[in-house]
């Protein structure tokens, strides 16, 4: 019997696993993996508790969603760094194979110089992080961002209304007490993520600058090569 699955499905799954593996092979990837394991364990422990319908579960679940999003950001950053690294290696290789007779000039209009044999290369927009971006990440990590305020709708029932309101406040406070405790713990985790993200952003920015500089060098080299070639051609003629 022919199954619904095809070899192409399996190959795409293999490729997906390979991409996942590429991310988790460095130390940062392992750190992410261990945080993930820890989080999964915590999630498992919490969701196995008896009062599954407790409101705190919903809040916790949302917090986990936030964590997942943070992890995704981290992974994307790592992937970006890896692609930058490859780009960096390629650029370094190109510059190594060229004649080492250049003098470094800062990147100016010469970037657009193109040889006849060289296809026009579309310039990648630089991913520049402003201090505002860094501040945004830092702000997201603050403990206050996780604190949950009490929100009790007052009942207008006569006689028992006041008692009910008081009871509701007590119950909400109790839940909030544990939620905020959890949030305090979560802050540590978030701050770790935040630190990583900030470090990665710095690194990305640094590498971008390096690449831009190297690209400028290459373009300068190409231009000088062109000049030399044309000079040689002229002399040969």
């Amino acid at each position, binding site marked *: 019997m022919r199954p619904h699955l095809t070899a192409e499905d*399996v190959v795409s799954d293999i490729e997906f696993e*390979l991409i996942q*593996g590429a991310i988790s092979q460095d130390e940062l990837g392992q750190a992410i993996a261990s945080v993930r394991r820890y989080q999964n364990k915590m999630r498992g422990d919490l969701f196995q508790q008896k009062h599954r319908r407790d409101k705190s579960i919903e809040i916790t679940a949302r917090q986990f969603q936030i964590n997942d999003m943070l992890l995704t950001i981290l992974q994307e950053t790592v992937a970006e760094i890896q692609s930058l690294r490859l780009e960096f290696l390629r650029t370094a290789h190109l510059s190594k194979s060229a004649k080492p007779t250049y003098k470094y000039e800062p990147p100016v209009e010469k970037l657009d110089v193109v040889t006849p044999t060289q296809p026009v290369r579309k310039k990648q927009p630089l991913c520049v992080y402003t201090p505002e971006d860094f501040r945004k990440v830092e702000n997201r990590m603050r403990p206050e961002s996780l604190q949950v305020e009490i929100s009790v709708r007052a009942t207008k029932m006569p006689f028992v209304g006041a008692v009910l309101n008081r009871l509701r406040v007590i119950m909400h406070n109790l839940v909030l007490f544990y939620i905020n405790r959890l949030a305090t713990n979560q802050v540590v985790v978030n701050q770790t993520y935040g630190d990583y993200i900030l470090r990665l952003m710095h690194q990305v920015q640094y590498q971008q600058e390096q690449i831009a500089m190297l690209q400028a060098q290459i373009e300068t080299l190409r231009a000088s090569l062109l000049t030399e070639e044309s000079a040689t051609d002229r002399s040969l003629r």
Partner: protein
Amino acid sequence: MSTGRPTISVIINTIDRVGPLRTLLQALEHQSYPFFEVIVVVGPTRDNTLEMLSEYGDRVRVLRCPTANLGRSRNIGLLAARGDIVAFIDDDAVPSCRWLEQIARLFVNENLDATGGAVYLAHPNNPTTQHRIGIISSLAEQIDVRSSWLEHLVPPGDGSVWVARMMGTNMAFRRRSLMEVGGFDEFFEWVYDDSDVALRLTSAGKIVHPVKEAVVYHFPASSRNRVAFTYTGKWWLQTKSAVYFCIKNGLAAGDTYRAIARRVLHLVHGHWLWYGHLWREGKLSFLQLVRMRFADICAAIVGAFLGAFLPRQLISPGSGDEGEGTQAIQLFQTNNSANTPSVDPVDGVFPLVSLPSPPLRVCLLSSAYPPDQFEGVGRHTNLLARGLFECGHTVHVIAQGEREQTAFYDGAYVHRIPLHLDRYFQYQKFSGLYYALNYSHGVYEKVRRLMLNEGIQVVDSPLWQLEGLVTAVSGILPVVLRLQTAHRQIANIQGDRDEDAYLMGEMERVFIERSTYLVPNSRAMFEAMEKLYGLTPREGRYLIVPHGVVPVPEEDIRPFDLQRKTDTFTVLYVGRLEKRKGIMTLFQAIPLVMQKVQNVKFIIAGGDNSIHDGFRHQTGMDYPSYFVKRYPSFVSCVHFLGAVDEEVLRGLYQTCDLFVAPSLYESFGLVFLEAMNYAKPVVGCHAGGVPEVVAHGVSGLLVEPEDPAALADAIVSLLKSPTKLYEMGMAGRQLLLEKFTHIQMARHFEQVYRAAIQIWHAQSPDISSEE
């Protein structure tokens, strides 16, 4: 000429181990990083180490250490070193090909002061991971093997300070930093010198960062201090060093006197109990027990006294050779180094071949591999590995094992990896595919590691079990695919029609498409694959390479003795007991043979596979039980031996008169070659690649598959003609020597690998340029 790359001084401290030292120097010829010098510090030697070293002329700087003291010997080497980095390796170890390259790359980080890589105890008898990113406390509590930096970050223990440590077998330091802390403490005659220096460097604010890679393989050899792989040794030296270490470093780290005293007592008591245990196990005599316990206590007292009152015996920071840079060192490698054949690190032998080009670094895949398993693919891979080694190449084999370990066996580094079912959960209901994908992914990860450490250039995988599929899909290296029996063929024979079998077949098709080069083992195999998977002809990308075996020496062959008086004959069958191997045809032929020739004994060697081929499901019996029930009157002349080991198999081949294997399909038929190796005539079927191995009427007879009458006739005709038995046996042996030796096979594969590497580089210029 300054290269801008750090220069390395490789320091080897040795006493009376000329054999392993020669192997190490031989292996250093293959280092991918050339900017290094070699310094050998020879202790009070009694063998011909100095004579051997003189063969290297000025390529090796030889220094003498007057005493058998490792700490002192290391310091002598350090003082003489001129490289920016000093790398220490034991004389009984062999570095991975990119050992120094990785060390140099690590030291590009100017903050790094010391590092060390993983150490695999690679001896064939007891392989294990000896050290990987280990840590140690100020009270000598240690964890030697960790999977990552996050594991056991702060383990429980008495010591207040935990630091990363390297193993002395494989460690490297920035020379300047090591000199700043005074080098090694010369108190340490043996062991703990490495941990002590790691602690002192860390205390001095230096960065010590061991890594998982930069691998070294350790082949422990006997020395003055111990007899390798026994319990005989001067273990009290360890106790003395450990006690000294605890007191010196415990006090420096601020551990309490109570904690230090408790730890010292714990160490001595532990050794005391251990000796008692060894005595009870019969590994020590009573006299040895008493002597060792007494020596241990004395050593502990000496260690404690000197630890408390003796100042450290370090070198003064100002001393040492100040020359640095490439011009200051005498490079070890020469122009001939690149073409040096690889060396067997266990025996120290290297093939006596002259290579016109650098040897290849090949990774072979085979989940089952000797000496643990001897089935078809594993056996073929083993023979290929032996052949390649004898042609001078470096061979790595990835096989399945219970835990991660590396051994050296038959000319190849055998890396065993466990099967972790931690991926591809979506295929759990397809058990075959699920296992195959998970294992294949594990193989891919190991291949990556070997790329990093060993610089492997090509991966060679069998089609069976899709071992190299993930590697082929990843495209990180060229994958040569050995086309042998396919799952789809087996499924067709056994009538498997489930989704798992279908998907396995489909993935085989993908694997064939994604591989760089195809190596069918017979023309029939290639045609079968063309038919099965609709392969388009791959001009210049396939080569038919028949299997080869190691020819047994002439004195071991046993052609039929024409002078023999006895009229009892032995017919041998070797192979799994399953439908594809034609075991039922043989069962049906046995009564027919017995009717015509009375004194025939059938020996059937091979494990029962009735569960997997569905026979047990159909009949409720395994094959031997079926035979006993179906042919009770012939039970006495048929012997079922089950799976047998190599030694027994050799004996069976030698003692049989005729070999028979009526397989319904064989991609090649290695068993026929094995019988021909011992000059035995063979009977097989016109199936698959068998006719390409067995010359009908010359080295044996071939009949149609599933024809018991024809099979019986062929067996009878040979048994009744002793001359034919002799002549066909000898003709088979001659054919084997001409066409089917492992060296011939390896030479063909070498040609394939070089072509595959060329094709792959042409296809992926980006990747090759990055390399």
